[in-house]
């Protein structure tokens, strides 16, 4: 398996008036060519900031505080964090080789331009086609993502399309330059289940067809189970468990992952009382000194209050950050 992207010890901090928010605090993972990675966690755990950091889209007061994002490109290895976010090289990678789908299709499209214009923009910029060719290409992409009457839709404005169709157009835009990596940040959260099923099906088909690597960010464990090869569970800016999808779902090790799995109501059985995780996610300005999950953890020990466990390989390819499985 050839590696496409390596994230090593990435740290993204936000320097606010009230203190430093460690949104992403040392996360590492590898994306293989043609592989799909899922990043799971609750709101505020740093999953979206991870994606934006890779894309070089962090704005002040946010700052990349450390780490490397190594992008393997034609035998060369480029550290994306070393590039000027507004510079020529980063701009030729962003949107062209690494593309992103955002959560809310309604707000991430520009309402005053037609769908076609917005898709053509990246095609003209990256593929150096003229306007006429770019328009043809845009229609072709809209057709590919299953939008009926693409010749007509290409000239319509975002408000004329439904949520599902807009998300399809976003996917068309993201894939129009055949990126090698697609980052999908909660791509179906704003959509209905039946439309969600359509969009997930579309992403899967396009992945098989174009062999694109995908990082999918979501809080919905159901989406992850059916779609990805590897799962990273995040809590308070750190990866707390990382393994292939079967291990994480059938043999979760970290108490947080176990709690998360238990608190999902199942469609296949009508349960009585749901088990749940006590308490709430701590505020990022007020992170516990030891393990971030310690105040909510039912298995917490003395050591958990003092120092944070590192992500270690417990069994082959199953990484867990928990003192239950480590020596102090």
């Amino acid at each position, binding site marked *: 398996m050839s590696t496409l992207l390596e994230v090593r010890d990435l740290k993204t901090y936000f320097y606010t008036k009230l203190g430093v928010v460690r949104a992403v605090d040392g996360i590492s993972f590898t994306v293989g060519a043609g592989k799909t990675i899922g990043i799971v966690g609750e709101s505020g755990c740093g999953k979206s900031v991870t994606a934006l950091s890779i894309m070089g889209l962090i704005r002040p007061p946010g700052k990349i505080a450390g780490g490397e994002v190594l992008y393997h490109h034609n035998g060369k290895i480029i550290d994306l964090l070393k590039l000027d976010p507004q510079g020529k090289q980063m701009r030729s990678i962003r949107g062209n080789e690494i593309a992103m789908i955002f959560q809310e299709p309604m707000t991430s499209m520009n309402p005053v331009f037609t769908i076609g214009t917005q898709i053509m923009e990246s095609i003209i910029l990256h593929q150096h086609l003229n306007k006429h060719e770019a328009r043809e290409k845009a229609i072709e992409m809209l057709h590919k993502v299953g939008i009926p009457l693409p010749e007509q839709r290409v000239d319509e404005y975002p408000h004329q399309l439904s949520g599902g169709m807009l998300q399809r157009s976003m996917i068309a835009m993201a894939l129009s330059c055949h990126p090698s990596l697609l980052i999908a940040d909660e791509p179906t959260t704003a959509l*209905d289940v039946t439309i969600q099923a359509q969009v997930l099906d579309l992403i899967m088909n396009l992945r098989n067809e174009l062999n694109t690597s995908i990082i999918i960010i979501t809080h919905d464990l159901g989406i992850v189970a*059916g779609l990805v090869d590897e799962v990273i569970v995040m809590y308070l800016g750190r990866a707390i468990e990382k393994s292939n999808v079967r291990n994480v779902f059938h043999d979760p090790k970290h108490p947080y992952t176990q*709690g998360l799995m238990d608190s999902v*109501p*199942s469609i296949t059985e*009508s349960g009585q009382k*749901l088990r749940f995780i006590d308490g709430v996610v701590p505020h990022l300005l007020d992170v516990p000194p030891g393990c971030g999950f310690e105040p909510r953890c039912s298995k917490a020990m003395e050591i958990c209050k003092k120092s944070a466990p590192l992500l270690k390989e417990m069994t082959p390819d199953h990484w867990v950050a928990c003192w239950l499985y480590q020596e102090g």
Partner: protein
Amino acid sequence: MPNDNILLEVNNLKKYYPIYKGIFRRINAYVKAVDGFNLFIKEGETLGLVGESGCGKTTAGRTILRLIEPTEGVILFRPKERVDGMEKCQEINVATASNKQMKDLRRNMQIIYQDPYSSLDSRMTIESIIGEPLLVHGVSKAKEREEQVRDLLIEVGMDPDYMNRYPHEFSGGQRQRIAIARVLALRPQLIIADEPVSALDVSIKAQILNLLKSLQSEFNLTYLFISHDLAVVRHICDRVAVMYLGKIVELASTNELFDNLKHPYTEALMSAIPVPDPNYRVKRILLEGDVPSPVNPPPGCNFHPRCRYAKEICKTEVPIYQDLNNKHFVTCHFAGTLSLKPVQRR
């Protein structure tokens, strides 16, 4: 009374919104948000109302409370009242009740909204938010009220010392608890919960669902639980109604609906749900396209353009809402004859 344990009965409820056109603002067409809606809820029961966005579930819920004026239909509400130690039951048609009657009724029917970030007034303290219904209905004096708010906060699992704080100091789950405390303040019998957990994180969602369940058994509450999440509905509801384009297409007890579903739309909806298990592979039934516009719904059966079993009759004739057997209601021409796939058990 023959059916004295039925708390709410809705018959042929309709809500049409006119669309005006031209300089004379002539009525051009109607958005049929709720179009002939029948159901009943027994006392102490949870009825789920599911469907995709735009199918009219929220409109239906609000019309039942008469937060929106119904265009047509009967909403019979039978609250129980204690007079001199005797339980008295009265029957009122909410659709035609006078303003004064409505004010009394509202003590017995309340609503929990979806988004706790916008449903709580950010300028009011928790005490005044929860105490407001008590004040409006003249239930208690200021001193007493403080004590009641304290008790309500304990009931929903929060620290009563938070009374003087403001909503922005709380997380989504805590805000939803505050909203629930406000709803409980008047001890209502019917609570319409409009997507109460959709805006919450997974681990918090489970906390709130458990809270709703335990409050129900404690205070004998009746819920109309509006949701788009079928897994949540399966967990919390006794019976479930599935809505499509302003109409109920299927209504049955929860187990019956999940094990023995009869409507093609329900089948597609069920198969679309992602299951959190990597070994679980079902062939999803993908519905083509979007929900049609309620301004111009398709003729015949509303669902026929997206239905894989549609035949000629579906394009022309509107199917009736019929009881198959043991209170399993379906709106489909081929309700008894199709063999549909239920949700598979692991």
